[in-house]
């Protein structure tokens, strides 16, 4: 199924946001703008709430306000029916212009690339950051009925879209594997470059010490933290 590439999963969620606004006589804001403001206020990199959600490779939120009117140039079309008919009647020329579509609600879009299956991911997400989830999704349609993890999973599934093509240009390993591998790469490069040219015995001792320090088989530590932005 197209959401999956090996062990990697592409989750695409469109959650309709309530129409209307909140606030009082001195300050009003639409629900969607409030959601957007909350998104802008989230911490970034290692401080993002998504850093606490297990197995998240890369994920994003944005507000889909409306679709765009394609007021961009038309292009040559061999034997386009409207092109030919429009020679005869103006109506066809007008019909050929792009239509103006409008969404009736604004949507909170959540797109996540992660390792594993959907339910485990959502359980992990609820368990780690349910307060942030409520903070972000609070003003979405029907989210007030989400009281627990089961409700959350059901809700997400109702909002989920299926990808037609999921392109994995990276790996599908568990996040811990990816982070540990990056950590080891960083450490080993330093080791290899700085220990160049050493004699066999000295190098072997240094290598043993290196392995003892970096623990290649221990995924938990030492390793890169999710979202780590400082080398």
């Amino acid at each position, binding site marked *: 199924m*197209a959401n999956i590439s090996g062990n990697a999963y*592409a989750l*695409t969620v*469109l*959650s*309709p946001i309530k129409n209307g606004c909140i606030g009082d006589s001195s300050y009003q804001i639409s629900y969607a703008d409030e959601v957007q403001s909350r*998104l802008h206020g*989230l911490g*970034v*990199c290692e401080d*993002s709430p*998504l850093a606490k959600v297990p197995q*998240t*490779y*890369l994920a*994003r*939120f*944005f507000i*889909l306000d409306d*679709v765009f009117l394609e007021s*961009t140039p038309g*292009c040559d079309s061999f034997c386009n029916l409207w092109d030919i008919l429009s020679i005869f009647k103006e109506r066809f020329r007008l019909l050929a212009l792009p239509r103006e*579509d409008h*969404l*009736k*609600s604004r*949507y909170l879009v959540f797109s996540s*690339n992660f390792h594993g299956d959907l339910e485990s991911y959502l359980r992990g997400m609820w368990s780690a950051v349910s307060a942030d989830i409520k903070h972000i999704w609070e003003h979405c*349609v*029907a989210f007030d009925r989400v009281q627990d993890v089961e409700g959350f999973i059901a809700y997400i599934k109702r*909002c989920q*879209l299926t*990808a*037609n*093509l*999921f*392109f994995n*240009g*990276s790996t599908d*390993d568990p996040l811990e594997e*990816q*982070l540990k*591998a*990056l950590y*080891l*790469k960083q450490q*080993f*490069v330093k080791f290899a*470059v700085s220990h160049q040219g050493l004699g*066999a*015995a000295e*190098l*072997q001792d240094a*290598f043993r010490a290196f*392995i003892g320090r970096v623990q*290649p088989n221990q995924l938990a530590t030492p390793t890169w933290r*999710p*979202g780590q*932005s400082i*080398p």
Partner: protein
Amino acid sequence: MSNIAGKAYAMNVITPIRWYMAWINRLIFLIAYRTPSTLRGLITLSLIHYARWVIIDRWKFPHLDPSQPKEDLHYSYMLFFSNFNGSWDQYVDSFTFAIPAGLDLFWKKNVRYPKSVPLTPFHDYIRHNQIDTDHYYNAYPLASSNDVKSAKHLKKKLIAFERAVRDAGPEEFLTKYHALLVEVQYDLGDMQPAPIVSLAAQAVDARRLLDAQRLLDAQGRR
């Protein structure tokens, strides 16, 4: 709000397709899904972590409650999400230069799609239909897609090597160590912070860091 997290850029593009033409795109994606060799150009470019295309039929926007008005659209829509390395310009440029036929295939029948060559109309089309990201998270901002892939290879080789030399004498160790270096010699790039893809983004980031520092200082003083 930022489209950038470390070395990754989050691109979101939404484009209309005539609903009676969308089956063509679905077919193309299905073929690409079944025949990975069609994506050889994308794979060789190696700039992407993960990307996806999602076609939403015009009547399939999630509808959760009677209180929510039902959508009434002329077109179906295609969503494109990409997580890639480098600047927006470099990404869009490399698509146009390297795999123009592939792009034309994926965006076929999207309303007013101008074809990927020449460049400027294609740039404009993507920009016109792009939505900015409000929150972007990257588990490894310091690593490009190439770094993640090469790290996987290096880890595998390093662990196998360590196991193989546990009981070796120094001379055998050295020989095998040299062989290891040869095996991972393409995985040894440094991982430093990304080149500045945008002076604007850099300025926003600098202010954010300054604000964070001020906050820390204020907390420290209390």
